[in-house]
């Protein structure tokens, strides 16, 4: 187990470095500059700005300096949000995004796995078909449809829940629900399919022959192997949920990370984009690592 962990970590660091290099080069080769605006700057001011931020240096020097700073935990200043550092911006947005994504992840996994199990208890029964239909709809509906729909029904018509902002704990309910819905649908489908495969395995028949209750057979003997594809899916999906759901944050007016990602890219705010990319890549690597550890838990043969 420890060997797997170390091996994964050894490959994670070069991957992260490659991601930084690639995004750095891509950002710089894209046309445009952070100081472009409606009214062009005069040449002298522009040169002064470039000098201030070190953008007049050769690319390789800039890269070296950036990497050196990142190693010390300094992601540089934002070029667009003046007076803010990238670390400061991320520190503002990350807690919101982490809360939103974390709650959505838990809800999606709980709803999805429970739905998959309920469906598999009586394969082909009305509940199975109903859950199958629901999860197909959940996967198919994009969050910019479910988000406003939830706002309309629960916020405006019924006035049960706040429409936007974060003034009360209840304000989390609608965005979390909207964000979790497609993931929950996908998890339910994957769980159900995995269980259908697992239920016809020989070892499940052995468990049934042992006189165990249908629920014990399902949860203890069939579920762990069935969850392997779910874990594969949830690893990268979790990183996506946690680092800011742009659409959901916009629809519900939440001050999360998503908008920095979009605006940073649009404004050529190099340090901001790189900071968010590093965070995103780091989270993806982290969650894939967690997924690998979970494989070992679900299937002892994967422990090597």
């Amino acid at each position, binding site marked *: 187990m420890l060997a797997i962990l170390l091996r994964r970590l050894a490959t994670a660091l070069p991957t992260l470095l490659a991601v930084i290099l690639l995004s750095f080069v891509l950002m710089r080769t894209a046309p445009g500059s952070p100081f472009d605006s409606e009214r062009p700057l005069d040449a002298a001011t522009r040169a002064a700005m470039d000098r201030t931020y070190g953008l007049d240096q050769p690319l390789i020097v800039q890269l070296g300096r950036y990497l050196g700073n990142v190693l010390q935990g300094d992601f540089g200043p934002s070029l667009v949000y003046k007076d803010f550092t990238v670390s400061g911006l991320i520190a503002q947005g990350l807690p919101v995004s982490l809360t939103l994504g974390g709650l959505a992840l838990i809800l999606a996994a709980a709803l999805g796995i429970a739905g998959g199990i309920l469906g598999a208890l009586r394969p082909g029964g009305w509940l199975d078909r109903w859950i199958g239909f629901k999860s197909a709809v959940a996967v198919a509906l994009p969050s910019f449809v479910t988000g406003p729909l939830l706002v309309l029904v629960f916020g405006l018509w019924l006035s049960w829940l706040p429409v936007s902002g974060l003034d009360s704990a209840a304000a989390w309910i609608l965005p979390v629900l909207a964000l979790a819905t497609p993931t929950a649908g996908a998890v339910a489908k994957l769980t159900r399919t995995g269980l259908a495969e697992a239920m016809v395995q020989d070892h499940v028949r*052995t468990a049934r022959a042992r006189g165990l209750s249908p629920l014990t057979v399902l949860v203890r003997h069939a579920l762990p192997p069935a969850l392997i594809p779910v874990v594969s899916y949830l690893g990268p999906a979790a990183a996506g949920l946690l680092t800011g759901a742009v659409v959901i944050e916009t629809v519900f007016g939440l001050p999360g990370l998503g908008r920095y990602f979009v605006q940073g890219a649009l404004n050529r705010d190099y340090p901001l984009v790189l900071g968010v990319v590093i965070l995103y890549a780091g989270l993806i690597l982290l969650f894939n690592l967690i997924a690998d550890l979970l494989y070992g838990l679900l299937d002892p043969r994967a422990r090597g």
Partner: protein
Amino acid sequence: MSVYAVEGLSLSLNGAQLLEGVSFAIDKGGCTALVGASGSGKTMSCFAPFGLAPGTPTGSARLEGAEMIGLAEPALRPIRARAGFVFQQPLTALTPHLTIGSQLAEAAGTRDRSALAAMLDRCGLPEAKLDQYPHRLSGGERQRALIACATAHDPALLVADEPTSALDAGLRHAILDLLDRFRERGMGLLLVSHDLPLVAKHADRVVVLDGGKVIEDGRAADVLERPQHATTRALIAASPRLDSPAPLLPEPGAPLLSASGINVRFGKLAAVSGASFDLREGEALALVGRSGSGKSSLARAVARLGPCDSGTVTWRGDPLPPRSRMRAEHRRCLQPVFQDPAASLDPHWTVQQSVEEPLRHLFPDLASEARAERAAAALDEVELGSAYAKRRPATLSGGQAQRVAIARALVADPELILLDEATSALDVLVAGRILDLLGKLQASRRLAILAITHDLAVARALCHRTAVMDAGRIVETGDTAATIAAPQSQALRDLVSAS
């Protein structure tokens, strides 16, 4: 007084009558064996009354007097818990993500470690296995663990469906001896097997099934020595026996393949150490040995289908390149047939597509009509015919699927075929017919054969010479009949005494 009695058991599924009026009984401490060809309804007769097979049976099945037929699952479960079940495939019958100990605890209804250790102990496994996962155990150990689980709650009846057919010969009697010890404690045993010598030794009653009906039923000695029914006689005749007369084999020709100093390592384990053998045109060599002795690793290394760490292989005097550099003209000479036909055929492909596939790669210039023609000829040669061309593996029986696998091996006109336990997964009647077919092909095509087997009867039926493997080394080689008659190595003596 019978522990378990089945009367007039019938079962139909999707319009097909699978069982019709099956009746048999098992005495306390007795053993009744159900025998018959595949598809005769043996497994269904075992599992249908307990709700472990699809469909709703009719008739009567009473375990310790409690009627099971007609009960719904919740009412059936406590009665089913009075029986224990052992399945055919020890590799897949245990839950892979739970330790042996936790599965045993589940079956026994206790977590007391010394009690669990005692249950393992009476099945011949040490206490340390409690903490291990099934994949760490060998096939024989898993089957013992499965028996430990099935007998943990002292069941009145043990249902064992082909409990030994996935195991090598040496282990079979050991497992049945183990089951006999449980019978001494009063447990009834319902045994399904196509291994008639085994049945003769352990069962006291034999029930012969054919097409879902009982065609013969009586004391084991009576049925096996004085069979009344033609099907029973065919089953007995098909049982391979070491004392049957040696077959006429084709005369070997020029040297074909020569392997020397083959080594295969898997990590720290030396699977094959310094093995050498030769093979001539039209000659058949059997590699025999128990599971894990390195037969498959050696054959795959030589055929360039598996890893080979060192050693040389020559084909008609020219060295055969390593696995990664084998080209079509090398692959054409040598084609494999594997143990499990259902697993070695792509379930999505038709028979014709599977048989044509080698031609696609080994003879890329062949036009599609010519490919179809050669595939049809190969299917004729394995006595299947064109009616099977459009079918998919799921609709084939085990024997038919293995014929397709043989056709696929033959279609590229190889000079040597590699048979990796090609008959071990088949029942005795079907295996006998496949052996007959291979014998015919051997004569008509002057086909050289490298046969990997743990079944000495296969070696006797097909092979000029036999090489015995033990712990990765070839310990004995010689003329098949002479070698089996006077085994020199302990490994071969064990195999002979187990056959």
